[in-house]
């Protein structure tokens, strides 16, 4: 299977939900509406495209823009050896998106990380709790407006 077949199939099935398709570093980037994420992802995971691996799931903070957060999903198909990037933008006031835990199991911790670092809410996530930072940590440290010098020690510092 070639990349073009997948792109064509996506264009046919989700024509009004796909905003943009471009190529960077040899991989396709598909920019979609956030509401259609689950549909598109399930379509890609099913045969014959078989994107059985979610390589990475992360977030980018574009502070100052109305659609502030950009979710990035890296997919990989073991049977066809094709990689695909899916991007979607979330508004600052309501940074929430469907959870992919029902599709890929490893999305669980990746989404917990994105929640921890950026404060993205994942609807349908079974256990949305901080992954790296401790309980009682305030704010989301990878957001651009988190103060650079802010420290939140758990115990009293000696100096």
């Amino acid at each position, binding site marked *: 299977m070639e990349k073009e077949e997948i792109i064509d199939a996506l264009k046919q099935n989700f024509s009004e939900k796909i905003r943009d398709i471009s190529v960077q570093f040899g991989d396709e980037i598909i920019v979609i509406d956030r509401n259609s994420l689950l549909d598109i992802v399930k379509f890609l995971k099913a045969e014959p495209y078989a994107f059985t691996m979610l390589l990475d799931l992360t977030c980018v903070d574009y502070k100052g823009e109305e659609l502030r957060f950009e979710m990035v999903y890296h997919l990989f198909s073991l049977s066809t050896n094709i990689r695909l990037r899916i991007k979607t933008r979330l508004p600052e006031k309501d940074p929430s998106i469907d959870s992919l835990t029902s599709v890929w199991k490893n999305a669980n911790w990746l989404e917990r990380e994105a929640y921890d670092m950026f404060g993205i809410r994942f609807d349908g996530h079974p256990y949305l709790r901080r992954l*790296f*930072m*401790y309980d009682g940590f305030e704010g989301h*440290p990878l957001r651009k407006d*988190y103060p650079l010098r*802010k*420290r*939140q*020690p*758990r*115990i009293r*510092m*000696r*100096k």
Partner: protein
Amino acid sequence: MKGGFITTTLNSMLGWGRKFSLFQYPFITACCGMEYMSVACAHYDLDRFGMGWTRFSPRQADMLLVVGTITQKEAPILKTVYDQMTEPKWVVAFGACAVSGGIYDNYAVVQGIDNIIPVDVYIPGCPPRPETILNALIKLQEKIQKEGHDWRWKKKK
């Protein structure tokens, strides 16, 4: 410590005994651990200096080796381990991260473990070379020899 012939001799004897029977507790969290392993094993051999015994319980250890980055999340754990050690005890900050936070000046990392517990010897380097570590541990032994020893150990502040 002021004293007569008997107390100073006893003190010196205690110092000699303690400096050559340092039981270590390695608190290893990061890549400096590889360097620690090479020092502790046969090639550089800490046992030559009487530090061969690694204790995996802080209650039996004299020397706490803090090897690697200490995050804010980990700080209370390190403090608990230190508090569990019985007196007399000494702490070695091993590597740039334990000394000062190293390259990690951010929201997650403690800027030097002396923010949490008192430190006796600092070993710089990212990671330190085995020779540096041996030098630092010999310095610690010299320090222990010079310290005023008391049967009733006074708590460090």
